[in-house]
């Protein structure tokens, strides 16, 4: 099999960048939402949870179209971003937003499970030792959730890397800007003579997805036991 062409390499590099930026940027929001779900009770929680999980359930094209309506040049937020010179429609940053939105639910679910697996008695012990809510979170809850967090990041990265429908709907396919690996693959499949390129990209996609799921599975298995007060 021949090595990747320049266009394929660009698509791969763009996919890696878009997925990485998307997942890293969504991490603080995912941590906040997961903590709210794991540790608090409030009115409308089931609705809040349902809305967070919506990108998992909705057809990706619908999510992409909603992003276009909101963040496009004529969208409520898109106009503000345009005015500030931060336009994201039809740019790689838009692709990163689409990837982040699609991967967000996976990250939230993994983090929520990780937070819920931390024994609350340890948090109570920390409180009696003078720790406030932030210190309890950063010194106890988060470190004890680390495996779940990294596993969630790996899964979310894999989901973002494979994102297609929402991305092509929101930011189209612009080489070097928004033509990520799945979009490049789709175009190669649709093009006469594109089979060998499609095969190469398929192989790359399989390897990246396998690596991510392997990391996630290893961490989840190793972190399978609850973190409880020891002794």
């Amino acid at each position, binding site marked *: 099999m021949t090595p990747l062409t320049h266009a394929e390499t660009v698509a791969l590099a763009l996919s890696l960048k878009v997925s990485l930026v998307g997942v890293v940027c969504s991490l603080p929001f995912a941590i906040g939402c997961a903590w709210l779900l794991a540790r608090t009770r409030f009115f409308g929680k089931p609705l809040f949870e349902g809305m967070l999980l919506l990108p998992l359930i909705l057809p990706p094209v619908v999510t992409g179209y909603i992003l276009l309506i909101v963040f496009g040049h004529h969208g409520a937020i898109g106009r503000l971003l345009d005015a500030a010179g931060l336009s994201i429609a039809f740019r790689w940053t838009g692709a990163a937003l689409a990837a982040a939105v699609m991967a967000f639910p996976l990250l939230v679910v993994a983090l929520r499970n990780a937070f819920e697996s931390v024994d609350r008695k*340890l948090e109570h012990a920390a409180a*009696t030792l003078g720790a406030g809510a932030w210190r309890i979170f950063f010194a106890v809850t988060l470190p004890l959730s680390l495996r779940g967090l990294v596993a969630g990041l790996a899964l979310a990265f894999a989901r973002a890397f494979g994102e297609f429908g929402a991305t092509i709907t929101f930011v189209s396919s612009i080489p070097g800007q928004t033509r990520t690996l799945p979009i490049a693959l789709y175009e190669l499949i649709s093009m006469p003579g594109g089979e060998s390129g499609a095969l190469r990209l398929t192989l790359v996609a399989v390897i990246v997805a396998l690596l991510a799921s392997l990391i996630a599975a290893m961490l989840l298995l190793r972190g399978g036991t609850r973190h409880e007060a020891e*002794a």
Partner: protein
Amino acid sequence: MISIDITLARGEFTLELALNSDARALALFGHSGCGKTSTLLAIAGLLRPRRGRIEIDGHVLFDAARRIDLSPARRDLGVVFQDARLFPHLSVRDNLRFGMPRSAPAAAFDGAVQLLELAGLLKRRPAQLSGGQARRVAIGRALLRQPRALLLDEPLANLHREARAEVLEHLRGLKRELALTTILVSHQPDEVSALADAVAIIDDGRMAALHAGTAFSAMHATPGPGYASTEPQAAR
């Protein structure tokens, strides 16, 4: 001075406790599920009474009428839980330092380590400790908080005979060397006799009697069948 007057509901169980004691070391003694641990958790701020007032050595920790309810972090109490609750991701050294105030002198750390014989354990993780060692680290961690009072919840529960003797000896040493108000929860007469100056007998969520430590020891020189149980306590 320990002054407690609270009503606390947990499911179908209601604790209605009123006690005043000027003992330096007070034990809450009673059968499993009588409300001892609930009282201790209410003092620590981990359970909220429906009504009442909790005051230790002149500091009001909870007063429903005056809407005072200090958070656990602001009560300045050292709590030793029955299950140690050491942080599994931290070394013994970091567990001990967790609650130390920034203003605490470095000698305080060394003093606690020496008093509880923890020097050889500092680099270990909690998973590498025996039950008795973990309990000693938990006591050290609570002491290094430099609390105004120490709360001990069944500090010798679920320990085998040697570990029990080891921790009891250290607690006796603490009582001798530190003038610290201590509230001990226990259902073991020997433990109470060894550590308490006064004993509040709790029965089904109510105060049944308040004895001087010496009187309690005399009464329980031969433990009765009801109070001799070594079964783990329900954390009611």
